[in-house]
Structures are given as structure tokens and as C-alpha cells.
């Protein structure tokens, strides 16, 4: 099979596909494991809020976005209507626009079935894997992304199912602090990416402003602080010129 990836023509055999698929699954494995408590939380909290088991599972299967799912459940629990839930979803998911924009140069040349599949699977975790320096050589291979995204999707849905079962028998599971899973995972992704002063500035600004906006309860804070962090990092890079080579 032959397909265009970026500006190069990549020819890979079907064994190459399986290899890339497997390497993707392997790359995402730590994150797929770490997301289990967070998935349990999504499933059990959905049951606590009053969703049927199949709606709870359908949420993970079709929505496939932890932060948005938990926020929506919280809103439903406090009696907020459909419009409020959908508006909050727009705010929380707005960051994904940055991901699709970042991957446009690499993925927009793929056939539609690939774009739709990888677009659907484009979580924070998949984005972090695809963008990481560690897997630079595999970035343009859609089979690698499919392996990572697909395995993560399975893990998220199995964890949700487990949460549905557990949540039905033991309520108040969400008070355990299962969302620490996301803290541990994201720290393990962020810290190794801090290789230049510019990334350090980016992370510091995003962290500080996100904290501030959260205190002020600005719903738009997530996207705004991410953009401020990116601008701060990019400005640092421009000011100190070529510091991509100057490692910390």
C-alpha cells in the first residue's frame, strides 16, 4: 500500500503497519494504565448522577473526553440544563482545536477515513504521544497513531465499564481523589518535555494563569491560559533566538 504522508511518499508493507500499530499501543501503554482510575471515576460518577449503565457507557464510547464528561456530569448533578452542559463542553473542548491545528501539516494529507478516525481519537494523551520527541520518527505514520489512540480508547471504555460496576455497588467513589490519575499522568508528560528555557517559561505561565483563572472561576481560563503559555514560550524563543539547541 502506498500513501502520501507529509511531502514524502511512504511505502510500507502490511507487516510494517502491524509493527507501527503495536509500537503505538506500546507507547501509550503507561498512559492507558494511568487513565484507569479516571475512567472508573467517569463510570461511577455517571451512575451516581443517575445515568443508566448504557448511557454511561455510551458517553465514554461516543464522547471519549474525560474532562468534558466529568464536567457535564457535575453540571447534571447540580441540575443545570442541556444548554449549560453544551456551552461548558465547548469551553473545555476548545483546546482540541490547538491539537488539530498543530497536526494539520502532518495529517491533513491523509485520506478521509484516516482523518476522521484519528480526529475522533485525538485526546490530550494521543497528542502528547504523537508530538513527543521520543516518537518523532513515527509521527507521520497513521498506523502508529491508530495503535496509540485505539488502545487508549479501549482502556478508557473498559475503565468506564469497571466504574459503572463499582459505582453501582459503592457510591461516593468520586470522593477518593481518583482524578489524581490525571495529575500523575500529565506531570509525567510535561516534565520530560521541558528541554529548553522557552518550554519552562511556557509551562510556568500556563500553570500560573490557569491557577489564577480557576480561582476566579473563569470557565474560559483553560484555553486562555494555554494560549498565554504558548505565547510566552514562543516569545522567549524569539528573544533568546535559537534556544531550541540550547538545552537546559
Amino acid at each position, binding site marked *: 500500500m502506498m500513501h502520501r504522508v507529509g511531502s514524502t511518499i511512504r511505502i510500507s508493507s502490511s507487516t510494517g503497519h502491524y509493527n507501527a500499530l503495536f509500537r503505538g499501543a506500546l507507547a501509550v501503554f503507561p498512559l492507558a494504565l494511568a487513565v484507569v482510575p479516571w475512567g472508573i471515576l467517569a463510570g461511577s460518577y455517571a451512575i451516581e448522577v443517575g445515568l443508566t449503565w448504557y448511557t454511561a457507557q455510551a458517553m465514554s464510547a461516543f464522547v471519549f473526553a474525560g474532562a468534558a464528561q466529568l464536567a457535564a456530569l457535575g453540571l447534571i448533578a447540580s441540575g443545570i440544563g442541556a444548554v449549560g452542559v453544551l456551552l461548558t463542553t465547548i469551553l473545555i473542548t476548545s483546546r482540541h482545536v490547538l491539537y488539530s491545528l498543530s497536526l494539520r501539516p502532518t495529517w491533513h494529507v491523509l485520506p478521509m477515513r484516516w482523518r476522521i478516525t484519528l480526529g475522533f481519537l485525538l485526546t490530550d494523551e494521543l497528542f502528547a504521544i504523537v508530538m513527543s520527541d521520543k516518537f518523532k520518527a513515527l509521527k507521520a505514520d497513521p498506523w502508529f497513531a491508530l495503535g496509540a489512540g485505539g488502545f487508549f480508547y479501549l482502556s478508557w471504555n473498559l475503565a468506564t465499564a469497571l466504574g459503572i460496576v463499582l459505582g453501582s455497588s459503592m457510591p461516593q467513589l468520586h470522593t477518593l481523589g481518583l482524578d*489524581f490519575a490525571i495529575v500523575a499522568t500529565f506531570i509525567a508528560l510535561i516534565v520530560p518535555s521541558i528541554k529548553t528555557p522557552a518550554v519552562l517559561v511556557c509551562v510556568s505561565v500556563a500553570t500560573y494563569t*490557569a*491557577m489564577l483563572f480557576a480561582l476566579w472561576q473563569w470557565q474560559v481560563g483553560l484555553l486562555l491560559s494555554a494560549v498565554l503559555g504558548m505565547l510566552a514560550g514562543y516569545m522567549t524563543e524569539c528573544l533568546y533566538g535559537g534556544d531550541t539547541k540550547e538545552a537546559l
Partner: protein
Amino acid sequence: MSWFVLLGMAVIIFMSRYVFLEPKLPMVLGPHLQRLLTYSAPAVLSAIVAPLIFIEGEQLHIGFQNRYFVGAIIACLLIVVTRNTLLTVLVSMGLFFLVL
């Protein structure tokens, strides 16, 4: 939760992930924008975790009584020392749930 809300969420989220993968969208990313976007992963991930780590019950809480804060420090130390993602998430989560 109604199916309307669930499907609405699914559509909104899919659109946000797909929008710029659409080649029919007439847009070329200049070199500056591409450089800027290299910072999107660390920026977004930081913006997501910061409130979880530093805020407890709608208030700023930096200190050793905040288990998220302590757990975050442990995770930072583990990833710096071991450079191993799997070990970092497993050990820091284990300590968080069993000890902290």
C-alpha cells in the same frame, strides 16, 4: 442525561478535534504559527493540571496538607530521577491512594 445532550457533546468534541485536519479548509500554517504550536502540548497539559494541584474547595491551597500538591511533587521527582513514565504514574498513584 438525554441522548440529545450526549450526541451534542460528541459532535462538539469531534468537531473541535477534526476541524483543522480538513484539507478543504483554505489555510496554510506559516512558520511562526508552526513554532508557536510546538508549545501547545506542554501549555494545555499544564493548564489542565494546575487547578487540580493548587486549588482545593475553590481556594488556593499550597502546603503539605494538600495531598494533590504532595502527590504532584512526588510525581515530578520520580519522572526527573527515573525518566520512566510507567514507573512514575504507578508509584505516585500508589503512594497517593495508599499513603497520602
